């Protein structure tokens, strides 16, 4: 099996991947820098509607960088390649346009915004999204109903929803808050960057259930994780290994078990051999 994935169209033609849905996200030969240093070095990935893709890989491989680049973080510079989302050139769009197009990132390190209440923040976000899509502002009753419904979905404490965005939240509370926001904004592509880390066992189950309940045939998720455990709850259609700025191996959820057991050395070796 070809594991180095230098072939741009490999992801689509791999015998593993008998896909049916419409392509949602197509990444081709993506190169990106941060502070002048190349982190992504020719990354290819296609995500279709209804799919869940897990991305695993050693620390510093570029997983969060991929999430940052997809969401338009200005600290990262794309030097090569293309990304299309629903056929649109994603790289042309501003971060907020990408968000309003339906891309959501659950941050590895959610940011605290003192003084801005969760309610105010969410209402602003929802209304921006609605404005972008040509809809009227959400009514106060609809908004409160939505808040209540989604809080229940992720079993989030009322007290958290009344506080400032992430301010003083524990690590796990922050992660749960990310999934709450995801539920509120109902994205078509969600990127979960290590949402499982920092969650206790119950919280992990609750958050994963939340993600599963939000799954629909017309949306998709990219789940970045270090642990096979999460994938017991969120069953991925594909598991990819990101190493040194590229996807070097793709498989089914069995690959996750293999990684859990064997670590990354054998993959690193395979990559070195084919160089």
């Amino acid at each position, binding site marked *: 099996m070809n594991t180095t994935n230098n072939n741009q169209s490999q992801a689509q033609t791999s015998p593993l991947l008998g896909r049916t849905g419409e392509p949602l996200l197509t990444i081709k030969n993506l190169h990106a820098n941060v502070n002048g240093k190349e982190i992504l070095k020719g990354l290819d990935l296609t995500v279709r509607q209804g799919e869940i893709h897990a991305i695993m890989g050693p620390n510093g491989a570029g997983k969060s960088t991929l999430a940052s680049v997809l*969401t*338009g*973080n*200005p*600290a990262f510079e794309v030097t090569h390649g293309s990304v299309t989302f629903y056929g649109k050139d994603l790289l042309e769009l*501003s*971060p*907020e346009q990408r*968000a*309003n197009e339906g891309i*959501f*990132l659950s*941050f590895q390190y*959610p*940011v*605290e*915004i*003192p*003084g*801005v*209440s969760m309610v*105010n*923040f969410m209402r*602003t*976000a929802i209304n*921006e*999204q609605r404005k*972008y899509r040509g809809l009227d502002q959400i009514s106060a009753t609809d908004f409160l109903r939505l808040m209540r419904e989604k809080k229940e979905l992720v079993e989030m404490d009322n007290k958290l929803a009344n506080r*400032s*965005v992430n301010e003083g939240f524990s690590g796990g509370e922050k992660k749960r808050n990310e999934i709450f*926001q995801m539920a509120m*904004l109902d994205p078509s592509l969600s990127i979960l960057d290590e949402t499982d880390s920092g969650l206790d066992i119950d919280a992990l189950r609750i958050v994963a259930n939340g993600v599963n309940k939000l799954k629909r045939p017309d949306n998709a998720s990219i789940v970045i994780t270090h642990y096979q455990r999460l994938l017991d709850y969120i069953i991925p259609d594909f598991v990819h290994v990101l190493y040194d700025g590229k996807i070097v191996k793709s498989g089914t959820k069995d690959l996750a078990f293999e990684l859990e057991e064997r670590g990354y050395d054998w993959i690193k070796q395979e990559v070195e051999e084919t160089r």
Partner: protein
Amino acid sequence: MAEDILHEVTQADYKYGFTTDIETDIIPIGLNEDVVRLISAKKNEPDWLLEYRLKAYRHWTTMKMPEWAQLKIPEINYQNISYYAAPRKNAPKNLDEVDPELLNTFNKLGIPLEEQMALSGIAVDAVMDSVSVKTTFKETLAEKGIIFCSFSEAVEHHPDLVRKYMGSVVPHTDNFYAALNTAVFSDGSFVYIPKGVRCPMELSTYFRINAINTGQFERTLIIADEDSYVSYLEGCTAPMRDENQLHAAIVEIVVQKNAEVKYSTVQNWYPGDKEGKGGVYNFVTKRGLCKGDNSKLSWTQVETGSAITWKYPSCILQGDNSSAEFYSVAVTNHHQQADTGTKMIHLGKNTSSHILSKGISAGVSNNSYRGLVRVAANAENARNFSQCDSLLLGDKCGAHTFPYMEVNNDSAIVEHEATTSKINEDQIFYCNQRGISTEDAVGLIVNGYAKEVINQLPMEFAVEAQKLLQITLEGSVG
């Protein structure tokens, strides 16, 4: 008579256009005793007021501009200024002639069309409409014995009150700008709330337009007699263009026994352009005297305008159990400079004061909080709490805090807390990722930061003030 002159001066340009011969209403630039006399004569003032002006003028000539503030003030040639409200030149005739950028801001603030015209200096029926609103409003106030009129009218109709209180809180010797104002003040507002009366409305919400053309040396006197209450609003959120560079106003407030005064300001004078050219120098002396026992005074200010702000609304807590509050948001962007804060002077027993200052700096601006808390030797059980926060947008701006404390009584509890924070790129990107533009993100964060102060403002004013903060900081991040 005074009213006629005022009317003539402010309306002349509109009535006749700029070719009209208005020489009789122009005083040559420069300041001397004759100019002071002329101003007084034009306003038909009584002798005692002229004498008071002259005394102030003579004192002013012995004074120097204060230099202790954290401000770079270009040299001001006081002989190069005209000290009598000259009619506005080249007033626009309709909105088409008004700076589109200004109109854009009006629209963002949601200011009604007729007010837009008035604020742009267009003389139209809309202004007349507001005059009729004013008249009915005045009747309601008159029924309760409340006096609310221009300073000139007060001098004419209530000379005893003016004479008794004018200069009793801010004496003409107080400081350089106060002396200057006393010598040449143009006009302003006068408020008297009689004993036991609760003013039924926010004074000056209806009077936004009234604030225009009061000139660069405004003077306000508010007297709240025993057991009375009034909430007073000054200024407006709309950007105020003014050709006068120098503004030196005085506000004096007297609060008698058991009375309460809330004074709110939104100051949005022209701040100059992005390169720091032009803009108003705002050198204001505001002070209230909590004269009677249990009196209460609260200052709330939202300062977004002016190239240079020098302003310390203060309270003298003379009455026993009197209390005072100072809530401030001061925003500086581009090349703006602000040195603002308060003074709380505790004299009576069991007095308390609370200071909450929120500075926001962006661009290459400089923002300083300067506050004095003084507890006199006899002021038993004085209590003060000060919170001074600074928020920085970007790393080229400056924020400074200068808290001074002079505590001369051991029973006093004086506390001071200060924080400095910064809006960082991660916060902005986090908002962006939720679909919120950078501009709106800054607005959200800044308004969250300033919330406690904004909440002190009357409702409708608060909404406008929120938008104003955001507009002022446009383009300052990202």
